[in-house]
Structure formats: structure tokens, C-alpha cells
């Protein structure tokens, strides 16, 4: 955790006047700062807002958008909505997980580089099956081979600065 983030945390709570009805918004902003919701940060949020830590934990685990474990630098989302599913989302997901050697239940690589998630619909069914990277790049009409090529590009991008150094 970098310095100054803690001050941001209290700023976020203050901005929402510590209102319990703003808990989801507060958690969203906190996650934007930390990239995930560390346990001690949630305990702090509960303390500052005067609610039970179990309640904050309950809200944080209810929504798929919140993560209590650190996520990778690249978040790869494989759409598994109906259209993507019937056009072959599962083999894409499988290929990615195999290439990254992700065991069952684990979404993020141990080096914190990649997180692979499925989503229920990205609203781009015409491009099915769809894969997004960090919600920025959208890759449509994907195949297992195609997604591995996208992954290889990301991996190469990561290795470049190291080679330069």
C-alpha cells in the first residue's frame, strides 16, 4: 500500500458523510483506489461508519464488482452470456486458464499480472464471443487461438521494459 492512499480513504468516507446508505458507493471508490478491498480497509470503513464489520463484509461479498483479493494488472473478462456461451465462450476461458496455469477457484496469477473472469453479458452480443482487457480493449468474435494471441501480446508488453533495463 502506498502512502497517501489512507488519506484518500477517509476523504471518500467524509465526502459521503459516512452515510450507511452510501456504503456501496464508498466501497466502489475505495476499490478504485486500492484495486481491491483489503480486509483491514473494510474494518476501517466499518469503524468510521459505525456499522458492524460483518455488514460491510456482507455487502462487499454480495456484489461481483467487489474483490477481496488483489487482482492482476490485466483483468481479462470472458463474456459467458447466452450468445457468447453458445458461440464458444467456454473453450476460450479454458484455453486462457490453461495457458496461465490457473488452478480451479483461482482467478489471478501468482505474479499478480493476469486475472481471468467470466461475466454474464457485456451487451455486445453481435460480436460474440467477446473478451475485454481492463474494460478498455474489446476483442470480438474470439477463438481460443485468437485469445492466446491477445495474451501473448500482453505478455510481450510486460517483458519489453525488463529487456530494456
Amino acid at each position, binding site marked *: *500500500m*502506498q*502512502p*497517501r492512499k*489512507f*488519506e484518500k480513504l*477517509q476523504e471518500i468516507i467524509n465526502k459521503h458523510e459516512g452515510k450507511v446508505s452510501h456504503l456501496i458507493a464508498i466501497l466502489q471508490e475505495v476499490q478504485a483506489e486500492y484495486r481491491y478491498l*483489503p*480486509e*483491514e*480497509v*473494510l*474494518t*476501517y470503513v*466499518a*469503524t*468510521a461508519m459505525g*456499522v*458492524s*464489520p*460483518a*455488514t*460491510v*463484509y*456482507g455487502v462487499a*461479498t*454480495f*456484489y*461481483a464488482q467487489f474483490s*477481496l483479493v488483489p487482482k492482476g494488472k490485466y483483468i481479462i473478462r470472458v463474456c459467458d452470456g447466452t450468445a457468447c456461451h453458445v458461440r464458444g465462450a467456454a473453450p476460450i476461458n479454458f484455453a486462457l486458464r490453461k495457458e496461465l496455469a490457473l488452478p480451479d477457484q483461482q482467478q489471478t496469477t501468482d505474479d499478480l499480472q493476469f486475472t481471468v473472469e467470466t461475466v454474464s453479458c457485456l451487451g455486445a452480443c453481435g460480436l460474440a464471443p467477446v473478451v475485454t482487457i481492463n474494460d478498455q480493449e474489446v476483442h470480438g468474435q474470439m477463438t481460443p487461438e485468437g485469445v492466446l494471441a491477445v495474451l501473448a501480446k500482453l505478455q510481450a508488453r510486460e517483458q519489453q521494459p525488463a529487456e530494456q533495463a
Partner: protein
Amino acid sequence: MQTGQVYIDGQAVPVGDAQNILEVVRKAGIELPTFCYHSELSVYGACRLCMVEVESMGLVASCSTPPADGMIIHTNTRRTRRLRRMILELLLANHDRECPTCAKNTGCKLQKLARQYGVNTIRFGNRDEKLPIDASGSSIVKDPNKCILCGDCVRMCREVQGLGIWDFAHRGSKTQVTTAFGKDLADVACVNCGQCVAVCPTGALTVKSEIDRAWSAIHDPAKTVVVQIAPAVRVALGEEFGLAAGSAVTGKIVAALKKMGVDRVFDTLIAADLTTIEESMEFMSRMENGGKLPLFTSCCPGWIKYCEQMHGELLENLSSCRSPQQMFGSLVKKHYAKKIGKTSGEVVCISVMPCTAKKFEAQRPEFTTDGVYDVDIVLTTVELAQMIKEAGLVFDDLEPAGFDNPLGMGSGGALIFGASGGVMESVVRFVSGYLGGPEVGRVDYHPARGIEGIKEAAVTVKDKTLKVAVVNGLANAENLLQRIKNGEADYHLVEVMACPGGCVGGGGQPDANDTAARVQRLKSIYRLDAVEQVHKAQDNVYVNKIINEWLQGPGSHAAHHDLHTGYVHRRRITGKPMEITGDAGNGQVDVSVCIGTGCYLRGSYEVLTRFTDLVRVCGLEGYVRLNGTFCLEHCDQGVSVRVNDEIITGVTPENAEEVFRNKIAVRCGTTVQV
């Protein structure tokens, strides 16, 4: 009061003050099934078992639908029957059906309703995933595989106890009722009151059993087993044997224990009388010498842990008296053992309590004599009933027996400790007698009595008017504490019991442990008190004997050592500290600023921000590692800061810079300009 009536299965029923259809239906003599409905708690509407058909509305959950004039309600139709059975089947499919070996077997509401609604087969597959059981706590065991997600425990803990230890986490088929971050129950702020166990319809939350340990002590010929029985047990245990709530069965319990092979059966009442005397003397001394007031009672271990966790600044207001259970244990291990020529290790003290938190209290490290616990085993009312069943004793046929001496007698004032307001009334009786002399007869103090959550009164003893309050339920206690803190209320003496109704409603009492049963137990306690000739603590000759012969007279050093205790600040939740600055290099100084609730409210956030700025301004980034930590357990002394191993208290945003300069910067082994 609403006017009008509804038609339930063709019968006209007046609505009256009913809040929902369910209440009206029950008034009409029809028992709708429910899991998540408790009149003491908020309406949740989750289990859907109470569905009824209302004409022109269709199927509605009767617990969360208000009645309207002229409603035509059908409670038993083809659809409602089919749905109820389906709901039960779905719950059972998701439930660990190890019924014969479950602690809740025959007392389980799911089991009962499955039978009642004729669920003979389950069409759905079973859940194959087994979740781990949490038995980390001293009192309560959680088996998530038996949880039906009715949320009763969640609402009980939040609404009645104000703690919110339990909540729903995750979603859909993965939903669980769990603690914060899924931590062990021993690592969170649970006070072990057991009210969640009292409302749990299944075996998901049960009391941690000490039955086997009790049997091995009883069967061990080298041990002398001494039992004490709390007041609230004797008006509730009969319910486990089919007697009406509140049946007084004192003599039968004593007889059963003797038949089971216990060496001596004593009464916690004698220790309760001692508590009354010690606490009254402490109270009068505080009144005279300007000690800390209000004085809070200390008999309830749930309240004590709550206070230690949440109100560190009030620890000096807590009476230093040990609870009756621990006074008794101390007397047994320090004096009685010697009297019968045994060591404290050769005597096993078993206490029978209506309470689950007493199990935690007995294991507090301060309550030991020569390295052994003063109270070795704590059984709840239900556990003792279970042992009586295991022993094959026919409870109905037991001839009542009397307690043994010299620790078997108590006054009516001690008996009423089992009811909310009892400790207060007993103190009022003692003080009235103490100041008024022998001509003061019976003192019945009605304002302290009853099931109400908060009772306030003023009592005049001689020329003094004492303002007193009696509170039960920790949410009510918190409410009262806030009023005291804000100056809206002011008392001399406050009795706090964690459970609604006091000990009669403890987490270790038999099912159904609801308001109706608790009221009956309260009435029974006061009936027993009304016919008890020994009325006040000081009228108990055995107590006077013990004080003079064992404790070297009233107010002696021995009495203080054996009967009093101290309290500790206790953190609410375990966990890692929050890193504020990253790892420092060599020669680093570890600085932790407490951001637990007590310190947070006193401005620890500003202190932490000041420190962060100072680290930067002084260029100490490589030297100081700054953390935010949850509780350094010095909650009463202002914001606490730990610098390496030293704890500095009373830090304020104003003196933060000075503290930083004198305590932190100087340790960095480098010259800095501040």
C-alpha cells in the same frame, strides 16, 4: 387499534391491533408455520412458509402483509400446501440431514415442520459440498451445513444485542451466514450471550457441550465433584421434561444430581448473597467517598465482555465484584477444598447456568487458584437436562431433595438474581436493611421487576434518594450508555443483563426460549421469593458465617482478594494492521496508531495524518514505518500510539508533532530538522 375484520377460512376475525395477517391467523387458532418470523424481531419475509391465499391478491406472505378490512383469507388450500411442502423439501435438500446425531434432534423446527407437513421424500439431490464447522469459541458452535438462512440470528444479534456479529455474506447458492471476513467466532466481538442459539430453528448454532467432561469428572473416584446451580435454572429445566414454562423444580434437580453421583450439590444463591453484600458495600463506599458513579453491576459475563470491548472508558465504573459463579468457584477452591482436606485440583467445580457466556467467564485467566480454574465445567440448563436423560432418571418420579451445607442456602434476594432487576432489588433490600436496622422488614422493590428493556426509578433509603436503572438486552444497554454520556440521564447504580428478561432468558435455557416462556419464568422466580423466609442477603446466616470464618470478616483483605476482580481492554476483531507507509529500510522505527473505534472517535485519524505529513516533511520515509492498527487495548486513555514496543497514550492532534519529535524522530538514528 384498527377496526374491521377479516375472514379466515370462512371465520370472521376482528383485526384488533395485529400488524400483519399472520398475527390475525394465529389469533383465530390456526398455527401457520414460520422460520424467520419472531414477534420480537423485525419482519424479514424470507422463509415464505407462512404464505396464505388472499382473494383478489393471490399468494402473499402473511408475516409481511398488513390485514385490511374485509380480506378473505385461505390458509389451507391446494396451492399453499403444495408450496409449503416444496419449500421444506428444498430446505431439506440443502441441509445436512444427520438428524439422529444432531444436538438439535427432536427440538429442531425444520424436523418438526417436515413431519407436520408430511414431507416423506425429497425429490431433489443433496448438496455435496461440506463447509467447515467453527468450534473456536468457548460457548457457541456454528455448523453452516445446517443453516437454512432464515436470518434469525442475524437480526437477533443486530437488533436486540446491537452487535451484528452475524450477517449474510456472498450470494445466491453460495450465501452463508457468517462473521466479518469469515473469521472464527473467537476472533470477533461476540460476547457469547447465546441469543443467536436461542432463535436458531435448526442445529446450525448450538451450545458447545461440556457434558462428556462432566461425566468423566463424576466417574473419577479421585475427584470430589461439587455442583452449583444458578437461580434461573430451577424455573426452566422442567420445560425439557414437558413441564409448563416456569415450573419450579429445585428439589428435583438436586435429587437428580445426587443420583447421578455428584458429591455435593450446592447453591449459587449463597454466592449471590455474597455478591449483594460486596456490591452494596462497594456502592455505599463510592457514594460516600466520591468514587466513580454510576456503578454498573458485574454479574453478567456477556455485558462485561461487551463493556471491555466497546466502552474501555467505563471499566472503572464496573463493580469489581466477581459474578456469583466466580465467587462460588473461588470459595470452593480456596476454602472449601481445604476444609475437606483436599487440594484445589482434587475438587471439580461444575456450575449449572442458564447462560452460555458463563463458559467464557470460567476460562478467564484471572479466575484460577493454584493453577486450576475456580470453575472447571459450566453446563447450561439444557446440558444438565440432557445428562439427566442420559442417566435414565425419570424426572417426574424424582423425590425432591435439599441442598448440602455449608454452601447450600440463599435468600430470596439471591433467588431473584435470575430475573432482570433482581440484582438491583437485592441491593436495595440490603442497603435498606443495612441503613435502616433490624426493624426494616421485607422490602419488595417493584419498579425493578418485569421484562421491559429499560426500567428507571428513584428509591429513597433513609435520607438519600438513589437514581437507579435496570436494563436488559445489550442494544438497550448501549442506548442507556449513550444517554448517560450525552448527559441526558444520570444514575447512581445501573444493572445490566445481556439477555432479554435477564438470566431466565439466557442462551442456555430450553426451547422455546421466547418472551412468553421468559415471562412465566420471571413470575415463577418472584413466587419463590415471596414465600422465602430469608429475604435479604444479610439475613443468610451461612453467608455471615463464611464472611467471618473463611474470609476474616467483612471488608477484609482476604474478602477482597477472593471475591473481587479487575477488567481488561479487549480488542473487537483480530486482523492485520493497515500499512500507511511502505516498508522502510534499515534502522526503521515501527509506529502504529490505533484506529479502533475508541481512538478513532478521539481523533486518531488526524494524528495519523499529522504523522504521515511529518514523516514526509522530515524526510524520514526510509526510517519510519507507519501503520494503522485496530486497538492497542488502552481504550480509556485517549489515542494510543505504539512506537516499537512502547505504548504512548493520550496523543491528540495538537500534541502529535511534539510526540513525533520526542518519541519517533529521535529513534531514527539520523539527525533531522523538524
